[in-house]
């Protein structure tokens, strides 16, 4: 593949990233993010990481879909969703972003970056690394995902009867039963 591909992907990626953060409509922002992630997958492929490209696409299909559901849910119900960035924080944001970029760019340009022609890891090597070199971390990540699932369920669960009638329920008067919790 030629450099042109890289520039094409990079330009698209930047454009979609800017659209993600600028778009007022949440659903659109999510769609822009999806595009951006797909373009990143393209870049991975360009950078000799086909397996990662695949994982990127697969993972984010699920993730982005969930985000989209949320976006739709939130924007449909609420007018306030369109209340977006005001101008003052806009200036702060631009400044901060420029600051971060300037910092990173300076550091990158000032550094003698290593150049190596060592071949990148193949998918098989990647798999071996995961289950050998990084075995501990791999197990820890599985614990992390388990914890996240348990946690997400605990937080998102709508109805769990809290107070026991036998004990101090009078002291705990107002369990807020919101509209969404009534069902």
């Amino acid at each position: 593949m030629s450099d042109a591909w890289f520039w094409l992907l990079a330009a698209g990626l930047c454009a979609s990233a800017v659209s993600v953060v600028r778009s007022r409509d949440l659903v659109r922002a999510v769609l822009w993010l999806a595009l951006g992630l797909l373009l990143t997958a393209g870049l991975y492929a360009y950078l000799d990481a086909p397996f990662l490209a695949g994982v990127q696409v697969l993972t984010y299909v699920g993730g982005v879909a969930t985000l989209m559901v949320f976006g739709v849910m939130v924007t449909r119900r609420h007018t306030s969703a369109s209340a977006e960035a005001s101008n003052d924080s806009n200036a702060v944001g631009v400044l901060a972003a420029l600051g971060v970029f300037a910092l990173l760019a300076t550091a990158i340009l000032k550094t003698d970056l290593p150049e190596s022609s060592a071949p990148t890891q193949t998918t098989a090597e990647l798999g071996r690394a995961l289950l050998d070199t990084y075995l501990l971390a791999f197990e820890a990540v599985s614990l992390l995902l388990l914890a996240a699932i348990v946690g997400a369920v605990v937080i998102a669960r709508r109805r769990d009867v809290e107070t026991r009638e036998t004990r101090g329920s009078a002291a705990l008067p107002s369990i807020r039963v919101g509209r969404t919790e009534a069902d």
Partner: protein
Amino acid sequence: MTLVQCLLLASALFSVGVYGLITRRQAVAMLLSIELMVNAANLALVAFAKYAGAPTQPLVLFTLAITVAEVAVGLALVMLLYRRYDDTLLDAASETKG
């Protein structure tokens, strides 16, 4: 293409994410910005693997997994926010301060 250009691209993406992180008031949009920033880090990792021969590709998988876990919990919390405040604007929840 060189490593420098890839890293600059990653930095640019990261900065855009920073912009979003600061300016977006929607909780979900803030999550999107975080996704962008992690994506930028991953891009840098892949670029290092390609041009510097660093064994960074496995790390991408780990950051992906971690982000998934974070976003899962984050979405649950946003849902909680929505239920308590009828809104997903982050500024809605600013009762504790001072």
